[in-house]
């Protein structure tokens, strides 16, 4: 019980930065877990414009070629997302509260 409380406090004190890359028309990793308050670093390693667009409308990140764009996660949920320009590119982000 005490251990769980301690863990709870130390986890929420540090928001994590998590990297998701788009390279060679592939999202990696395909499935990512995060929590509210974490920052996603979307790294576009391709020569093309990509997006990370949440199907539920929560966010729509546009990533210019060879650039990294950050997104702070504000809402919990299991979010399927895709690239609007290359709809075969799909991933899932599970955001814990």
């Amino acid at each position, binding site marked *: 019980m005490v251990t769980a409380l301690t863990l709870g406090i130390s986890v929420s004190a540090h928001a994590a930065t998590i990297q998701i890359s788009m390279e*060679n*028309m592939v999202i990696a990793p395909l499935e990512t877990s995060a929590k509210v308050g974490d920052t996603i670093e979307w790294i576009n390693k*391709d*020569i*093309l*414009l990509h997006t990370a667009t949440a199907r539920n409308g929560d966010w729509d990140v546009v990533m210019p*070629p060879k650039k990294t764009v950050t997104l702070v996660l504000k809402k919990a949920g299991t979010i399927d997302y895709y690239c*609007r*320009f*290359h*709809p*075969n*590119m799909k991933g899932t982000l599970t955001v814990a509260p």
Partner: protein
Amino acid sequence: MFLRMSAAIAAVSLLSGAALAQGAKPSDPQIAHIAYTAGVIDVAAAKQALAKTSNKDVKSFAEDMVRDHEAVNKQALDLVKKLKVTPEDNDTSKSLSKNATAKLAELDKLKGADFDKAYVANEVAYHKAVDSALETTLIPSASNAELKSLLQTGLKIFQGHEQHAEHVAAGLK
């Protein structure tokens, strides 16, 4: 349908066999020219579609074609400039361009759903042909490593285009 099939077959044989049959494999300057020409052709087809379509999926697909092919072609131009290679016109590029002009004229006569179906069907066939040519001829024949790498990147992108086109085509049925 028969017209589209034969156009696709013609494109494949031009790219992979007949036009290159007379000699050795294509040189790097010829490969650069063929790849660039193939991209220019798809941008022109997309611009025709953007002018004619009112279907949002077709419009979205055509915008992707313009965006992606212009980006790849820009990379190709930057690369040949860096390598001091001058793209060399050749029979394959000429045939591709000639067929593309004929296809634009054919599609120009269509409108509405007929245009949409024909445009997307041709995009499927065209990307299949270009992907096949990249895999069987252009990539294996490329001597310069950076050119080969760019062609491989192009192949990944254009395979995605093929799938996207197939998906749009299915939605138009």
